[in-house]
């Protein structure tokens, strides 16, 4: 994975846990520049996490004959992709110091809505997908507006939405699953392009765009400002409410994208989809170094965090640990990894 120099720089600065700070590199020679860049990469917070992910992959390749097979890698890749879409959106929300607990329910809502639209109403897949995305965006708009205008903490607003969206999907579907999707739709969940699953392509593009938005655009700056100090952001002329609402729309829309892909992957629309995804997404973002207080973090860390969590899940399966126990494991690992991360930062 190539690491963009600029990101690494931002991260070393903001968290202060890099090694020795670098002198102004304005007029240094090329080789020295390369050395600086390398040093930055090595001291960046992401590198530890990256190393852990690589070690885990190596270990799994050694410990299980099934891990490094095309079949398993495709499965894991797809899972990471679907989770990454949600984690990226979650990262946006956490960066402003908020949280979105409703993403899992949005997945269910979208899953049911796309089933209703395509199977029961017979709408063409493109129209159905657009409708489902719009529903997702609408959920975010509601979350964000209540949070921004009524000042109700996002934790509470999205906890309510978690129940509302889940309830809606159960109500609309009558609690049953919907199948019989057109094959063209299933392709986006099950097909592959150049040998790589379509969801992986989509998630990769989304992650790269999100990274770009956060590091290179004014909207990205606004997000960090609001998360770092809302009052100061307001007094710098930033439209704080607009930023907040946008961020929730991003999170819900990405959850909707993930929901559509998952529906296509499983060939069923189901009201039980997406259960517990919020925990996974929050865990991935925080393990990746995004601070729950806002203002610190980024997509690279989130991508690594997501990969780590899903590789561990895969490992549990490959090592033959009962599915019943896996959720407990995941919970322990998420909290443990977050604790480790915080301890590491505090020590610095």
């Amino acid at each position, binding site marked *: 994975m190539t690491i963009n120099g600029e990101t690494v720089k931002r991260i070393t600065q*903001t968290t*202060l846990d890099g090694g020795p700070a670098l002198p102004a590199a304005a007029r240094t020679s090329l080789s020295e520049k390369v050395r600086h860049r390398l040093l930055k990469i090595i001291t960046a917070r992401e590198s530890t996490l990256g190393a852990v992910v690589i070690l885990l992959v190596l270990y799994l390749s050694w410990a299980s004959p099934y891990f490094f097979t095309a079949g398993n890698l495709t499965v894991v890749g797809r899972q990471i992709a679907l989770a990454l879409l949600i984690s990226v959106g979650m990262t946006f929300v956490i960066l402003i110091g908020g949280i979105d607990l409703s993403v899992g329910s949005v997945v269910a809502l979208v899953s049911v809505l796309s089933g209703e639209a395509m199977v029961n109403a017979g709408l063409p897949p493109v129209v159905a997908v657009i409708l489902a995305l719009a529903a997702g965006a609408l959920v975010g708009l509601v979350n964000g507006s209540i949070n921004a205008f009524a000042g109700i903490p996002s934790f509470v607003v999205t906890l309510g939405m978690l129940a509302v969206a889940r309830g809606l999907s159960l109500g609309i579907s009558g609690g049953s699953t919907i199948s019989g999707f057109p094959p063209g739709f299933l392709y986006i969940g099950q097909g592959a392009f150049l040998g790589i699953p379509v969801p992986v392509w989509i998630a990769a593009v989304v992650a790269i765009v999100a990274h770009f938005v956060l590091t290179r*655009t004014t909207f990205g*700056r606004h997000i*960090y400002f609001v998360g770092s100090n809302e009052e*100061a952001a307001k007094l*710098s*002329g930033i*439209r704080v409410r607009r930023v907040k609402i946008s961020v929730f729309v991003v999170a819900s829309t990405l959850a909707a994208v993930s929901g559509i892909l998952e529906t296509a992957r499983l060939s069923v629309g189901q009201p039980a989809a997406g259960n517990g995804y919020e925990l996974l997404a929050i865990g991935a973002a925080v393990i990746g170094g995004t601070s729950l207080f806002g203002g*610190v973090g980024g997509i690279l860390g989130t991508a690594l965090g997501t990969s780590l969590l899903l590789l561990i899940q895969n490992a549990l399966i490959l090592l033959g640990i009962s599915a019943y126990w896996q959720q407990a494991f995941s919970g322990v690992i998420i909290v443990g990894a977050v604790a480790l991360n915080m301890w590491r930062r505090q020590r610095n």
Partner: protein
Amino acid sequence: MVTHPLIAMRGIVKRYPGVTALRDVSLSVESGEVMALVGENGAGKSTLLKILAGAARADEGVIEISGETVQVHSPRESQARGIAVIYQELNLANDLSVAENIYVGREPKTRLGTVDFRTMERGAAELLSSLGIDIAPTEIVGNLNIALRQMVEIAKALLIDARVVVMDEPTSSLTEEEVETLLKLVRQLRSNGVSVIYVSHRMREIFEIADRITVMRDGAVVGVRDAKTTTPNDLVHMMVGRELEDLYGVRTSPVDATATPTLEVRGLSSGKLLHDVSFSVRPGEILALAGLIGAGRSDAAMTIFGAAKRGGGEILIDGQPMALRTPREAMDAGIGFVPEDRKHQGLFLGLPVRENMSSASLSKISRLSLVSRRRDRDLARQYAKQLGIRESAIEVAAGTLSGGNQQKVVLARWLARVPKLLILDEPTRGVDVGAKAEIYQLVRKIASEGVAILVISSELTEVLGIADRILVMREGYGVGELAAAEASEKRVMAMATGVQEDVS
């Protein structure tokens, strides 16, 4: 028998990534003495005190208390050894009461093991009244102004029977009158045999209170002086390594009295805080708002900037009435605002200095909402240079800078927008003499370029030194205006407090 100093720090070294904050620093404090610690921003004063307080760990060096070498690894250990610290940034729980804050971590318990609020409130009331502080122990700290919160912090420190009270810039947010109360408190401590380490950038206070003065520069001690045998000029020289002749500068060209005011305020009101205030500032003019804390000066500034709701009155920019409902509208009208509380209202502490500087000028450094890294960097370099911030600081988190440099960063943010009206609320709070002179020279310079300046300051000498005109406020009303020539400390104070004095 050899007598040992109460506190002796020897050979202290502290390194942060990229900077050595302290190199071989020694400090000794006798019992019952007030030791002042002075030095430029970033000299390492706070760092040294954090080490004494157990809030930071030295890389090298020893701490001795009454001759005995001790290890202080945590604030708790340091408190247990009788060291009480009042930090530059207050450490209070704003949602709790005054009594709860004073007793935090030491709550008296009832027999059932629950907190004994009655004993706690009685104790707090006694402590506060013995210090001459008029606050109810049940008051919620969040409702108090900064000065009173500071008093609570001091009371909290005194609860632990401290042998040494460390005060890091205790007066930076106090008005003159409140400073007097605090100094009285310090004297009282000294007469009780308590030692005080006192950090301040205000020379007057230092000479009023200190027995000895330790001067620091660039992470090292450059000398220890007896307060009686040294002068402010000597100290400044030791601190900055050069002479500072004219702190506030002088006006080079007269204000055009016929020009349309850049800002005119008529009958401005806002809630209970501001009533019917009127004034105007012309291009190139420096108007100061003087008054006690709570007089409504900051409220006036916030209202003009669109950050507080306007209850009534008119605001005219260049003669045109303006709505100014949000900071954004105020900025579009050409107003810049350096707020009072830089930590909570000014800075993005975790973000790089560069991003802090360009945060109000993003449209300038971006196209189609794409930020140009080059223009971002150039902007930061330009203003870092203009304000005397070292270039290597541009990429570090703003929160790691010393107080004065943090202030310069906020200033840079607004200079980068080239405003026509710049509102400065306590622009030199916690800023060292050298930087203060730099900031005021800068203010003079932009004023001479035609920018109208509205400055709020609680330091009277500063108000008198920089302003062309002074509007004195009291309890939300404008109580009078003075031209620089007719103003004196006494007159301003009399108007600010409403006490009729003979001002001849």
